[in-house]
Each structure stands twice: as structure tokens, then as C-alpha cells.
């Protein structure tokens, strides 16, 4: 469009008679000539081009592409320092313990567990007088290698701490997960709410360089365009060989759908950058659990909030960057959280509530074909009228599997077992059915 030179705008103090009144112009207001002088336009256009060029040059190569490769549990275990001796994997092993002590808090929920170098375990959960209460805090407890019990819970972050660190009013804190990055720095991603209920959640990051004994200040992530509302976290991340961390998160306001938050750590630890991939086409499915399948394949398992009440699965062929449509599996899901890991032999182990409604049992299931079909396995908990929920499953470097979950909304329980125990239980179930 040719640019016509226009006379400079009259000074503000000039009399109205010196310039035509806008009211005299018969054209619509949006089409009237504008007194932005030509030389101003030229300078501003040049500035826009220079700033645009300079800002675009800051683009970091490769960040717009899928992560190079997702580290499978076997590869991750090979990098991590060994914990318990691998020989322990041969004999069936099963142990239970309480992560949170009895007089701790009236309500405890949404636990996560992370194996640390040297065989130590670190668990986190939130607790207080009730879910969403102002006195709720995110706690951590650790278990030393070989020890049977857990340390006393310590507050990692509560409402008051978050309020100071984030420079804003915080109404409550909630779900938290912990995981290490490639440099050994431990990350905690936790939910906080300033306005409304859980649909008003936002995510915050804390990091620790001493395996969770002390935590750095919180940093708010802006990942939702509308007031940064309604992003929550529940399950463990996947790790790319280029250092990126793919954390499964989900959206709950208006529409409910899964998302993958890609966190890029600095070489020496801490957060360099983040960005979010939304999967808004998968409405009604939340709390994704990601399982690396080897190569470029990743399995996503989803909680079903729709009427169908079935656990859903989706697949990525490019390390979690793009995803297939979600399909229902043969496992029920009573609108409750679930989790899964890949076993060293390639099978997928899931933990879930085996019912179409209620959370009165907690059960394991195994898939021999990357999550396409499932066989229900041993029942870990079952009691009418009770709640066993929000399981969190991880492998450690010694081949053991660790499970934490909410017990009756009062305590956090930890179960540790190995593949030999799992296979024995599966054999016994088959024998019992025959």
C-alpha cells in the first residue's frame, strides 16, 4: 500500500479552526486520515524490523523440534548411581511402610516418590486439616538406604512461604512432584491457587542442589493464556537425552485435557526455559502418565472424567512431541489417578483403581504389548467404604519398584517390590483362576 505523506499533526494548543474537526468528516471514524507523520512511521517501522530481527535471533536452535530421544528406565538406571545390590532382584521382595507418621496431619494426599543417588528415597505429599485448607503444606520425608522407616516430615513449602517467594497472595498449595535433572539438581513442581478452587491452579518450580534437604525460591510458570489459570501436575516426567524434561500436566478450567510441559534445565542445573504443548483435542482426559517405550515411542495413560470410565491410552512416535488420538483400554477407571512404569523386560506395569466408580481398591496390571491390552494383577488394597488413591510408581537403579499412594486420605503408604514378586503374584492369580 503506498504511503501518502501527510502534514504533521497540529500542536495540542492550536485552535480547532486550524485543523478540520473530526466531526466534519463524513467518513466512518476508522477510515479517517491519521495525523501520524510519515517520518515517524518510517522510524517506527525501522525500529520494529530491527527489534523483530534481534528478538528472533535469540531463538535457540532445536527448541522447536521434538526432543532427541527419551531415556528409557533402563538407560536412566545405567546413569544413576547404584542403590541396593542388583542381586536382590532375583528373589521375590515385597515390603510396606508408612511415609507419613500417625499424628502428622488429619489429611494427607497426592504423594510422589523419587529415588536419589546412593539408594536414598525422597517422598513428597501435601497435608493439613483438610484438602485445600489454608494450613496445607507440601511435606517431604526421606528414607536412608537399607532403613525400614522414614524420616520426620519436613515442610518444603506452604502458603506463607509461597506467598513470600512468589510476591502474591496464595490461597492454598497442592499437588507436588519431585524429580532430578541430568545435572543431579532436584526439581519440585507444585500447584498453588490464588483465586477459586483447583481450577484456579498455577504451577511453580523449586530446585534443590542438596537432594531435597533445602529448596531454592519458588518460580511461577506462566503456561495458560487466560489469567494463567488451571494447570495442575500429578505424575512423573520423561527425560530426553538432550536434557529436556517432559512433565505431564493437565488443564481443568472449562475444558479438561492433558498437556506436556517441556522444561529445559541449564547445564549446571536450574531452569533455562519452558514451554507447554496442549492436547486440547483429548477433552475429558486428565492426569496423564507417561511411559517411555524405547526408541522414539512414548505411551500416555489417562484418567477418564467422561461417562465411559475407562483408562485411555495414546502414543507418541516422536518422543512425546505429538500424540495419537486417545483410545479406551480394557481397564476400568473410576475418574481416579493412575500411574505406570516400564519394567526392565519391556512390559508395562500400571497401578490403578479397578472399578467404574469409587476408589475402594488399588490394583496392579501388566501389559505385554506396550499398553494395548492389560491383564489385571494382584490387589494391593481393598476395603469397602475406604479410599486408596493417587498412586505414584517409580523404578530405582537396583531394579526395585516403589509405589506411594494415599491411604484413606489420612496417610501416605509406601510399597516396595521387585519383578520376581510381581511375577510370582501373577502366577498365583492364574493358578487360582484355574
Amino acid at each position: 500500500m503506498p504511503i501518502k505523506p501527510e502534514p504533521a499533526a497540529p500542536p495540542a494548543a492550536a485552535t480547532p479552526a486550524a485543523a478540520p474537526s473530526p466531526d466534519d468528516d463524513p467518513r466512518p471514524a476508522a477510515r479517517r486520515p491519521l495525523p501520524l507523520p510519515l517520518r515517524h512511521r518510517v522510524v517506527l517501522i525501522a525500529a520494529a524490523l530491527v527489534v523483530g530481527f534481534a528478538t528472533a535471533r535469540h531463538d535457540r536452535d532445536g527448541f522447536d523440534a521434538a526432543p532427541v530421544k527419551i531415556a528409557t528406565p533402563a538407560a536412566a538406571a545405567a546413569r544413576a548411581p547404584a542403590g541396593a545390590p542388583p542381586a536382590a532382584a532375583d528373589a521375590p521382595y515385597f515390603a510396606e511402610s508408612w511415609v507419613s507418621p500417625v499424628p502428622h496431619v488429619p489429611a494427607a494426599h497426592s504423594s510422589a516418590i523419587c529415588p536419589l543417588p546412593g539408594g536414598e528415597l525422597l517422598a513428597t505429599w501435601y497435608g493439613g486439616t483438610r484438602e485445600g485448607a489454608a494450613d496445607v503444606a507440601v511435606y517431604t520425608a526421606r528414607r536412608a538406604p537399607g532403613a525400614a522407616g522414614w524420616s520426620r516430615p519436613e515442610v518444603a513449602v506452604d502458603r506463607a512461604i509461597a506467598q513470600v517467594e512468589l510476591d502474591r497472595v496464595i490461597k492454598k498449595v497442592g499437588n507436588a512432584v519431585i524429580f532430578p535433572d541430568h545435572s543431579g539438581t532436584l526439581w519440585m513442581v507444585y500447584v498453588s491457587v490464588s483465586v477459586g478452587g483447583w481450577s484456579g491452579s498455577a504451577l511453580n518450580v523449586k530446585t534443590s542442589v542438596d537432594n531435597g534437604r533445602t529448596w531454592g525460591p519458588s518460580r511461577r510458570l506462566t503456561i495458560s493464556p487466560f489469567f494463567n489459570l488451571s494447570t495442575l501436575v500429578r505424575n512423573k516426567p520423561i527425560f530426553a537425552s538432550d536434557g529436556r524434561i517432559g512433565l505431564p500436566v493437565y488443564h481443568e478450567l472449562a475444558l479438561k485435557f492433558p498437556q506436556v510441559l517441556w522444561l529445559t534445565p541449564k547445564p549446571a542445573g536450574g531452569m533455562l526455559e519452558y514451554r507447554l504443548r496442549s492436547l486440547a483435542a483429548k477433552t475429558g482426559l486428565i492426569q496423564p502418565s507417561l511411559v517411555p517405550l524405547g526408541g522414539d515411542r512414548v505411551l500416555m495413560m489417562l484418567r477418564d472424567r467422561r461417562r465411559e470410565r475407562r483408562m485411555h491410552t495414546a502414543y507418541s512416535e516422536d518422543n512425546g512431541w505429538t500424540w495419537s488420538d486417545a483410545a479406551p483400554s480394557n481397564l476400568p477407571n473410576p475418574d481416579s489417578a493412575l500411574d505406570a512404569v516400564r519394567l526392565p523386560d519391556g512390559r508395562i506395569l500400571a497401578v490403578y483403581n479397578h472399578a467404574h466408580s469409587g476408589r475402594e481398591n488399588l490394583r496392579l496390571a501388566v501389559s505385554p504389548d506396550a499398553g494395548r491390552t492389560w491383564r489385571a494383577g494382584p490387589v494391593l488394597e481393598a476395603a469397602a467404604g475406604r479410599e486408596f488413591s493417587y498412586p505414584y510408581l517409580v523404578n530405582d537403579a537396583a531394579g526395585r519398584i516403589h509405589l506411594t499412594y494415599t491411604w484413606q486420605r489420612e496417610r501416605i503408604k509406601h510399597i516396595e517390590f521387585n519383578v520376581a514378586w510381581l511375577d510370582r503374584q501373577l502366577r498365583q492369580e492364574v493358578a487360582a483362576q484355574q
Partner: protein
Amino acid sequence: MIPTFYAMVLVATLWLVLLWLAARLRPGAHSRRLGLVLGVAAMLLLFLPVGEARLWSWAFGFCPNPSMLLLGVVCAGLWQRLFGLEVLKAADWTAVWRFAAIAGSTLYLQPMVAGRLDLYYWGWEHGVAAWALAGLAVAFLAVGNRLGVLLLAGLIGYSFDALESVNAWDYVVDPFIWLGSLGVLATRAAQGALARRRARRAASAPPFGVSGGASPIN
């Protein structure tokens, strides 16, 4: 510690609200001195305790990422109230409201109507986002519209990480300006429709009824 850009927007907004209130309460009392006093009052209001926190802490918790467009609109209003200078002309205002309505509707409503798209993601792609903002700014500047200046300011803010958000789209649109723009455009549309209706009625009214005093009896 209050983030600088956020504090600027909040002070400017409070200042504008106080000036508007003063004009409503005492129409003839406007002076530069009063404007300055109200500016200082706006700054002090940031630290007003509301419940357990200061006012700015509540506001920051609710909207930590006000856009450059919002700052521009507030500053234009402030300038007009303080100095009587019309920074944005009628066509600029029209462009601002239309841009905010279209950009906000596209960004905020897209997951509901086209879930497979992920428009917000592209705001993290520095190359795409920077050139998109620069292109929009150039387009509006080329036709002499001052919305281009606000978009350029958004691009500069993005390049300096002025907001807590690192997503480029948050620098040019936010929920407040979006909802405000929808309100303005809806009001204009309603006013336009009313005016057309009145014009149609006037055109179709019988000539003897125009003076208002005629009646069939007379």
C-alpha cells in the same frame, strides 16, 4: 519486590480511576496539582493492607501479566485526563478494540473450537513470535495507525522479558483488554443498531407527527 512493569500498569490504572472519580465527584475542580496528588495516592494505594496482604499482592496474584496494549490504553486515558491531549485518535481506538477482541477471542477460545491447534504454544517460539509481532506492528504503522506503536512496545517488552510470562502473546493481549474490548464493541454495535432503528422510525413516521403537536382532531 514488585515487578516493575506490573507496578507501572497498576499505578497507571489506579491513577486513572482516581482521576475519573475526582471528575465525577467535583467536575470543575480538575488541576495539575490535583492530578499529581492523585498520582501519589495511587502509588500509596499499592501498599494498602487488604486482609492479610497488600493491595498489589492481591492484584498481582490475579493478573501478573498485563499486556502492553492495556498499558497503552491506560496511559492514553491518563494523558487525556491529565493534560487534555488526545494520544490515540478515533481510528486508533477502533483498531485497538478490534485487535484485542480478535486476538483475545482467537487465543482464549481456540481450545474450545479447534483443540488440535495450539496457538498459545507459538508464543514461545522466539522466531515465529518476534516476526509475527514485528509484522503486525509494521502493518499498522504503514497505514499510520498508532496501534502499531503499542505492538512495537509489546515486541520490545517481549525482547526484554518485561513480564513474568515468557510467551510473546501475553505482551500484546490479556484477559482484561480482551473483555474490555468485547464490551466496547458490543456497546458500539448496540448503539449503532439503536441509532439505525431511530433513523428508520423517523423516516417512516407520518409528516404530521413530526412537530409533535398535531392530532387528527385538530
